[in-house]
């Protein structure tokens, strides 16, 4: 009889998720060739990631932002407001460039959904930035300095009522809604429901219902892509994302300046709040992996990059809860694919403190020779195809850099070629040359 999940070791859990990924249930491959390609690709990734066996060649994955839209001659606005245009563009991108995986097509969030809820956290094409550019975050203190106790003592209340009322204009009234914890007897049962009869709360809930309809329309398109791509032979390189607790607070709750003030003015509260967020962000990844039958959980890292924090600050504020999230994922069989945006040169020694073969680190601008040296035998390294070469470099420069990366990082396996940062419009011939070079030059003999 098969072992129950709870009885498995973490290795068995990971192997079980990899097995589900390599042999997915219910996928109807379009051809025997597609099925063969799918198996080869997932096996190639697994071998590179686990650093136990050398893969047949270096795997290559692409993480585009709006690049597939631009490649099809569409603007970001086009795909955010016409959901039918998303799948054909993203599919064409994968079929034309033939990377070893796909990353879903959820980059274009549904524009009308954002309009209905009056999303305040970002500017998006046609809404604060021009229709032909990507969306951009608006830094701010969406959580006030004096609200740590609410987040710490009552995180669900914070995320159900306070947070949405700040980042969605249409939901502003819900911050005033009372708890329903007082509804435990017949007497007084109706009191906390009185606000639901008032026009502001009714309008907020009406907006929620309409936004829900819109989200459903969008996912029917976007979700179809996730079914179609494996059938065509392209595995998904992530089941879902999660984040480092420091980034959760520093990116969009307190903002960069806010969290930096808190490091001085209320360091204990900040640390306590990150500890509270830790299990929530482990669960986020674990649920995604189990639902998708794919162990790969992406973790984009932001505010721990070189220069953002001193060594001591990184070790005190950033790394402890990041490591806990990573280990929480690993314990449940997930494979954290950690994307260190910016430079991570000063962190290489610290991040070595991880179990062998349980994580992958995708680097943006880090010195790859040093990264490979530091993580050799500990983790798979990935990335470093630079934006400048993709955007303004010559094709030969892109090819040369690709070969250098394979020589430096690809020795004995444990390397995945990938772009270092999210990309939009690039020199398509360079992108094609990179993928093709990996397929020729990156073969292990």
């Amino acid at each position, binding site marked *: 009889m098969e072992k129950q999940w709870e009885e498995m070791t973490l290795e068995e859990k990971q192997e079980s998720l990899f097995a589900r990924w390599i042999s997915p249930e219910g996928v109807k491959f379009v051809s025997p060739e597609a099925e063969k390609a799918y198996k080869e690709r997932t096996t190639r990734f697994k071998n590179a990631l686990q650093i136990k066996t050398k893969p047949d060649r270096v795997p290559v994955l692409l993480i585009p932002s709006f690049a597939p839209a631009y490649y099809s001659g569409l603007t970001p606005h086009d795909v955010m407001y016409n959901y039918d245009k998303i799948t054909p563009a993203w599919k064409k991108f994968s079929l034309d460039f033939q990377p070893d995986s796909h990353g879903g097509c959820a980059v274009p969030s549904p524009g009308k959904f954002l309009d209905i809820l009056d999303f305040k956290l970002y*500017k998006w094409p046609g809404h604060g*930035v*021009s229709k032909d*550019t*990507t969306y*951009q975050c*608006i*830094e701010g203190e969406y959580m006030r300095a004096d609200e740590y106790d609410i987040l710490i003592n009552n995180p669900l209340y914070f995320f159900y009522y306070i947070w949405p009322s700040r980042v969605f204009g249409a939901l502003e009234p819900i911050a005033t809604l009372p708890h329903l914890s007082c509804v435990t007897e017949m007497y007084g049962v109706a009191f906390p429901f009185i606000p639901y009869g008032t026009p502001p709360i009714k309008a907020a809930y009406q907006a929620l219902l309409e936004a829900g309809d819109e989200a459903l329309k969008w996912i029917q398109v976007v979700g179809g892509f996730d079914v179609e791509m494996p059938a065509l032979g392209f595995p998904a390189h992530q089941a879902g994302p999660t984040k480092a607790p420091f980034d959760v607070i520093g990116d969009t709750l307190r903002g*960069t*300046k806010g969290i*930096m*003030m808190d*490091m*001085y*003015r209320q360091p204990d509260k900040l640390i306590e709040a990150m500890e509270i967020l830790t299990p929530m962000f482990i669960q986020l990844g674990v649920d995604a992996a189990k639902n998708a039958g794919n162990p790969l959980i992406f973790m984009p890292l932001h505010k721990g990059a070189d*220069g*953002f*924090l*001193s060594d001591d*600050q990184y070790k005190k504020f950033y790394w402890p809860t990041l490591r806990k999230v990573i280990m929480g994922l690993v314990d449940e069989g997930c494979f954290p694919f950690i994307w260190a945006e910016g430079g991570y040169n000063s962190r290489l020694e610290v991040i070595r403190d991880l179990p062998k073969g349980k994580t992958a680190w995708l680097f943006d601008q880090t010195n790859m020779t040093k990264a490979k040296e530091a993580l050799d035998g500990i983790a798979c390294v990935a990335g470093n195809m*630079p*934006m*400048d*070469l993709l*955007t*303004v*470099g010559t094709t030969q420069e892109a090819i040369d850099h690709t070969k250098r990366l394979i020589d430096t990082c690809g020795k004995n396996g444990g390397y995945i070629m990938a772009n270092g*940062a999210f*990309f*939009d*419009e*690039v020199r398509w011939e360079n992108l094609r040359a990179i993928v093709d070079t990996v397929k020729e030059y990156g073969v292990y003999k």
Partner: protein
Amino acid sequence: MAEDLVKVLADLKEEEALKIVADRLGADEEPLKILEDARRAMEIVGKRFADGEYFIPDLVYSGEILKGINELVKPKLAGAGETKRVGKIVFGTVAGDIHDIGKNIVVFMLDVNGFEVYDLGVDVPAQAFVDKIKESGAPIVGLSGFLSLAFDSMKETVEAIKAAGLRDKVKIMIGGGQMSDEIKKYTGADAYGQDAMAGVALAAKWSGASE
């Protein structure tokens, strides 16, 4: 007490710094002297940042403490004291890009190093750079950008400066997120600075050369 303020502010001791300022103002001390001490402290902060002892959180926090000091001193200030400035710079995040963390750090470092910085903010159209260069006569321009779309915005800004007949009157530096020497060539700027210190070094070199 002057040394105390310089030391505690440079060491980022907020409460102590504010208390010293309040005490000195209470003793009817000349407000400009207090501001001069604060300026000296910020120079030390800038130096520590350049030396790799301080990082972004420390800079940001020092700025907040300074803001608190200014708020205490301002009501007592009769006329604004003029600080001698070593050079003028027009600075901004280029069109289409709204990122400002990196730009603010460079502007801060230029400021504590004695430069007069005209900070145009974010998403700055090329024409706004041109107008400010004309109006201020600044010989140095700093273009900041985080996104790859900024590559083209920077190129267009440099071209607009050229079209306005100002290209030989200014030196242009670029920096931020995905910038590099390759992108410098692409945009037609004069230099790429990898970090805030590089920006200050370029500005110092250029303002020295232009005098």
